[in-house]
């Protein structure tokens, strides 16, 4: 049962009646009794929210930064008209634009309520209750009831690094021999024979075929294909730290998406693994056709865990997935203590069998702190920042010395830098 402001207004008007006509306790009682009786009659006449049948339809997914629309069908199976307010409750980060709607559903009819969501965070957003407040014909009082109408909208990562994809694909085509420039190098394999045209590198002439054929025949080359790329996201505690406005993990996801899309397009086999002390996401054998859809779906619900990553277990997981030579890309944060104690002792076991690329999300704030001058506070902060930068550089050096490639860049630069390193490795045949 609910009452509206009109009941209070009516009681206030009653004060005038009491003062003018019956200034006594009996008068107060009588006026209040009349007000309450009217309110109760209104409650009895209001349509029951319990009799409503609700169902949902609409969007199941939304990319972060875009909006989704979820429709709620309200069917009144009760005998009386339901008129009032409906609240479709969503968690705050689902960003419901307007969650209160006036509804008026006569008995036996159906109305459609649309809720627009503008999510502010990645992940699954589940609808909470739908609450209906049905007010009686006098507008004095009514009934209120809630329904559970489950629905989940998966908010996908925004993939800001998407804009770097076309230029990297163009460079991939240059490598691929489909474009005019052909590069013959270490990382290429024999493709086919064809007749010589002017401009071809004379070193690529196949003399034996030329002798057999009569005309001048050249060999064509293409970059290696069907290599194995395994992207490993570290979701441990270093991924929770905020760099700029978002956690490190979001930059890592962008990096993984760009690299995954590029490698799948290049004809390589792409696997994805998210790990801290257990496997958080595991996507295998991504096709070029649906690589982004599957990766985005798996990465959307990933959250940083406040755990120390178990690198020993991680290496075991990698070994189980990559039996042959592969490119293992570990996206993490180069925090000296975590890496020194965890990754350094075991990285050797990976570099002996695989090409290892350690991609790290750097914090631009370190550089700005290190540039601080002017007073003693700023200089002490600069010294502390230099300490951390030296430690990071040292760790990176140690990793490099053990055979890993290290890319340490701020969040915005990391995805293209990793993609470039991948292309470079591919061009030089080190995949």
């Amino acid at each position: 049962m609910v009452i509206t402001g009109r009941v209070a207004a009516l009681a206030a008007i009653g004060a005038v009646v009491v003062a003018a006509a019956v200034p006594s306790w009996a008068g107060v009682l009588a006026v209040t009794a009349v007000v309450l009786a009217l309110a109760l009659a209104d409650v009895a006449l209001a349509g029951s929210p319990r009799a409503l049948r609700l169902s949902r339809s609409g969007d199941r997914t939304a990319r972060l930064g875009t909006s989704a629309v979820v429709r709620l069908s309200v069917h009144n199976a009760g005998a009386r008209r339901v008129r009032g307010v409906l609240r479709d409750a969503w968690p705050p980060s689902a960003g419901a634009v307007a969650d209160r709607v006036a509804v008026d559903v006569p008995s036996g009819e159906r109305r459609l309520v649309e809720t627009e969501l503008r999510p502010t965070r990645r992940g699954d957003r589940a609808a909470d209750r739908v609450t209906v407040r049905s007010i009686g014909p006098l507008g004095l009082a009514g009934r209120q009831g809630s329904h559970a109408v489950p629905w989940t909208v998966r908010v996908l990562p925004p993939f800001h690094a998407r804009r770097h994809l076309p230029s990297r694909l163009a460079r991939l085509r240059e490598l691929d021999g489909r474009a005019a420039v052909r590069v013959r190098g270490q990382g290429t394999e024999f493709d086919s024979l064809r007749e010589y045209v002017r401009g071809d590198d004379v070193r690529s002439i196949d003399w034996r075929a030329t002798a057999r054929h009569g005309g001048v025949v050249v060999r064509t080359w293409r970059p290696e294909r069907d290599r194995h790329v395994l992207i490993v996201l570290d979701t441990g505690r270093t991924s929770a730290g905020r760099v700029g406005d978002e956690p490190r993990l979001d930059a890592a996801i962008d990096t993984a998406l760009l690299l995954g899309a590029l490698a799948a397009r290049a004809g390589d086999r792409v696997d994805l693994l998210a790990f801290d002390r257990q496997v958080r996401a595991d996507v295998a054998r991504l096709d070029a056709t649906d690589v982004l859809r599957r990766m985005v779906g798996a990465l959307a619900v990933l959250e940083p865990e406040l755990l120390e990553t178990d690198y020993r277990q991680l290496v075991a997981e990698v070994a189980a997935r990559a039996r042959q030579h592969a490119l293992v890309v570990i996206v993490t944060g180069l925090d000296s203590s975590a890496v020194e104690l965890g990754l350094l002792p075991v990285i050797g076991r990976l570099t002996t069998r695989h090409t290892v690329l350690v991609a790290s999300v750097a914090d631009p704030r370190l550089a700005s702190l290190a540039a601080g001058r002017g007073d003693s506070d700023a200089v002490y902060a600069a010294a502390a920042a230099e300490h951390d930068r030296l430690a990071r550089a040292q760790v990176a050096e140690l990793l490099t010395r053990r055979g890993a490639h290290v890319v340490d860049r701020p969040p915005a630069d990391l995805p293209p830098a990793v993609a470039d390193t991948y292309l470079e490795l591919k061009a030089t045949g080190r995949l």
Partner: protein
Amino acid sequence: MSTATLPESRSLDPTGADQWRRWRRPLATVVLLLLVAIVLGIVQSSAGRGYLNPEGVDNAGARALSRLLAGQGVEITPVRTTADAVAAAGPDDTVLVTVPDLLTPGQIDRLVDTGARLVLVAADVRVPDYAPGLSAVLVDDPGSTEPDCALPAAQRAGSARLGGLGYTGDLSRSAGAACYPVDGEPSLAVTATESGNEVVLLGAADPLTNEHLDDDGNAALALGLLGQTERLVWYRPVPEAAEASDGGGDDQPGAFTDQLPGWVRAAVWQLAIAVALAAIWRARRLGRLVTEPLPVVVRASETTEGRARLYRRGRSREHAAMLLRTAAIRRLAATMRLPGESGPGAVDALVTTLAARTGRPAAEIAALLTGPPPADDTALVRLADDIDALENAGTGSSPTGKDPRPS
């Protein structure tokens, strides 16, 4: 963006049975508490407490005395207000005032005007208002006192527990007795008001209380003083303000609310009901609050800033200077393609190269890069600026923006 529909919704409203199941335990608890309170109240109310309460069973009460008086055939009327006392008392009655000093002169006048015999217990500052020409003085409290007078009641009782207050002045009106003298002043005085009714002034309450009733001749004295008339009005006054609303004399202004016309009170109550309804209207929420787990918000640079604060608090200039120098040496060595950081020989080579490139004395550069730690914070700030200048001169570019990245 797939589209799908789910099965029908589920109503979450509790039914009547659910409500009963949810509320029956709290309801039972409340009923039980109420029952206990009622039982305790009944048990407590039969046993009164309080100073000279005729139903009081504690030490200061007077239930024993009131029972004794009732046994003697005296009809006791307990009252708490002047109006009741005046209404109950007639010229042939006795009025016992347990706290006479609590009454205002106006109330005393109304009480005296009844013509009743007054017995005042431990009257002090108000004595002249009851019996003009008489006043109270503080005397010793010896415990047991001899009567030493001709008053029949005192004669019969013998020694009694009196003292504390003595009465001095003109006792010549009416019978005028002065008994139980302490320090030369009587602590039991019988005199009369201006209109002639008898006033008995009792210096202490002890002879009447449960605690001391059976000591000495206390009981006999009390019975003798209070049992003289058939009706006894037992007046235990309450403070003046609490009695104000029963429309006292000129010196008792009524409360503010008494001055308002009657309809205002009813209208105010009705408005209060309206406000309560408005509160209920605003308080009801449209569905519950929706909560969600929030992500951890820790800046990645948090540890760096914490370390900076530690350096600052510890004034570790030596450490800070060493870090700034090491970083600068690393960067300079990287730009000049020299082997950085390892060994003093490498630094010497760097100093020589820098001196050649910038034209500054090698000793000055060596002091900057490997010299003693700065003496105070000002020197540290200056050292940082000097290192910046050296890097600028050595590389021809902004120094701190550069980063010796290995990849």
